[in-house]
């Protein structure tokens, strides 16, 4: 496959870059998604040439028939978003260059992104300079998210009885089917459903959604932020989910990777980053002319949705893991301490 990719690049390079400087040699890195279940993921090749510090091209290849729809959808969405954005914003996502469908296989080529993956680590005891640096980085990321959502805004949907029935009750029902729910969970779910009635007539915005807006997929080159992996993106979705996904992907004071500790530090413990997160969320809701109090309704709904997201179909990434349910259960047990915005 290496030779085939090399040929593909050399044949099509002059169409993608003018003037095209052909690579003297291509150096490959093959990655296979998550280490836990690589067999369920498409294969990604990062292509370096002799001069580049970051991949010049990225080639994604289906592993088997099951991964073809994922890649096809990713390529389609990438094309959609790329061409929808103004030219100044296009450089923040990979440029879709070419797709090829052979019997039993699909591959596409996109341009590589500049920069370094942002660190998910946040130290709650960091000094002032550290806080400023982290704050600035988050500002950049959220500015990107704001711009992305502005460009893909599709209107709003009002919270009605029917909306609650479909979006909240339906989700809760699925959750009940999937997990055996104990009394405290049941009480919480009923209470949560009931509280949505307060929010009737609220306009929930509909925008494009990246769907996997984790620190792993965010690259920063100075202040320039760019986003990779559009495999879970959607043309229409709730803007909050990307923000919640981003916040959940941070390791707040939990370097060894205990996501529940991080979750606790972020939303339940008093520290400077919690203050910062509170401000971020408040500003985010104000931008959409919504009360920040809605966060306490939307966030648990997000957790429930993530918990029932099955490992299959469009959710082959780590989003369907059991950590989401653990977070939800932690939230239910400790909701009196949960961050208020």
């Amino acid at each position, binding site marked *: 496959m*290496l030779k085939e990719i090399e040929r593909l690049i050399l044949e099509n390079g002059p169409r993608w870059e003018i003037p095209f400087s052909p690579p003297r*040699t291509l150096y*490959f*890195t093959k990655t*296979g998604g998550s280490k836990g279940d*690589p067999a369920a993921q498409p294969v990604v090749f990062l292509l*370096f040439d002799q001069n580049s510090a970051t991949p010049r091209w990225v080639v994604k290849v289906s592993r088997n028939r099951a991964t073809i729809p994922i890649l096809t959808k990713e390529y389609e969405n990438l094309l959609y978003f790329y061409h929808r954005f103004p030219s100044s914003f296009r450089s923040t996502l990979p440029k879709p260059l070419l797709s090829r469908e052979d019997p039993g296989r699909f591959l596409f080529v996109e341009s590589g992104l500049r920069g370094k993956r942002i660190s998910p680590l946040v*130290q709650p005891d960091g000094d002032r300079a550290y806080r400023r640096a982290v704050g600035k980085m988050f500002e950049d990321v959220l500015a990107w998210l704001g711009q992305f959502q502005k460009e893909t805004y599709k209107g709003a949907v009002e919270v009605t009885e029917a909306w609650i029935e479909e979006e909240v009750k339906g989700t809760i029902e699925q959750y009940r089917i999937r997990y055996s729910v104990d009394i405290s969970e049941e009480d919480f779910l009923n209470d949560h459903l009931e509280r949505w009635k307060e929010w009737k007539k609220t306009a929930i915005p509909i925008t494009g959604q990246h769907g996997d807006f984790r620190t792993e997929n965010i690259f920063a080159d100075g202040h320039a932020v760019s986003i990779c992996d559009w495999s879970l993106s959607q043309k229409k979705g709730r803007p909050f989910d990307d923000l919640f996904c981003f916040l959940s992907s941070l390791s707040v004071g939990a*370097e060894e990777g205990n996501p529940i500790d991080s979750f606790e530090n972020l939303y339940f413990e008093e520290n400077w980053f919690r203050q910062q997160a509170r401000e971020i969320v408040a500003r985010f809701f104000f931008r959409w002319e919504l009360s920040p109090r809605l966060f306490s309704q939307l966030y648990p709904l997000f957790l429930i949705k993530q918990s029932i997201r099955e490992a299959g179909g469009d959710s082959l990434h780590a989003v369907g893991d059991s950590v989401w349910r653990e977070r939800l259960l932690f939230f239910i047990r400790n909701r009196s301490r949960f961050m208020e915005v």
Partner: protein
Amino acid sequence: MTYGALRKLAARQVRRYSGLVCPQCFHPLLEESNFFCKECRTKWKAIDGIPCFATGDDDRGEISEKEMAQMNALARKVGWRTALKERVAKTNPTLYEQINDEASADFRFLLPLLPHSKVLDIGGGLRTTAFDLQPHCGSITLVAFFKEQAKFIEIRREQERLTNMEVVIADRLPLPFAPETFDVIIVNGSLEWMGQIDRGQKPQALYGQFLKQLHQLLKPGGAIYIGTENRFGIRRILNEGVHRQSRYGGSSPSSFPWVMALFRRFSFKRSDRLSQGGYRKLLEESGFVESQFFMPIPGYHRPVELISLDHPTPLQFYFNQRSSTSARFGKLKENLALWGTSLGVISFLSPHFSMIAWKKKNHA
């Protein structure tokens, strides 16, 4: 048609694929003559229908031949999957995971596999590699070194009704195939055992003979894939995850790994693994025109990530993207890794290598 008849038909169809030759005189063998060489008059036996060219009676597989025989008997009754679960899952969970791990064949994405490609997998053992490769190529021939292991593979092949696979029991040297038979040859995790086949010879000389033989078996433009350990691999130096049964590897007392590592480092005659430069040189000497080296992560048994070692950039990028520690010691380690990458130290200490080498194309 009965199941038995279908099995026989499938077995007969399989025989079409590889050009079997007598490993003594390299005269073509015909199945009709029951693997009898008309040239040198040697009669090669078939064990349960599997051609056997192995001269020794080796018993150094992952599972002993006795246990394998018991597992095979069970596999015939209850199916290979259940037998494997019953016999291996509890006693050797790591091996069980490896056997069932689809990611073990992930190197296939580097290879020029086409629907008509003929592939030779040497010493894949019980692992599922060949079974995962077979849907992506025309036919695959598995060389097993151990008889009961070969029987198990054959049972699995029959039960999965795969007609584009065949199993041959043979030694590494010489292999019973005609020149220019295969498009791709895979030697994943069996090269480092070469030193065992003839203790009278230096392992490097045996490697050379083996690779020259593989070069002959490849069609022009074909590729060989090798997954093996690095002589200077960091894990080897620290005496971690080294094959205990190999000729020299892992034989050191664990309390003196550094001493033994240094000893191995400087005793060129005794090493049964090579460095990146050593393998590259050997491949060149064996006639391969181009070779590409990768660091398989977590290892060649499971090459989920394969990072080019031919230039420092891919490895630097890899470490750059991974760095996510705030601890001082962690940062120091990361910086050392990045610094070591640009100096080529990390690539030098790569625990394992995955390499692809190409045979020159014929130009009309």
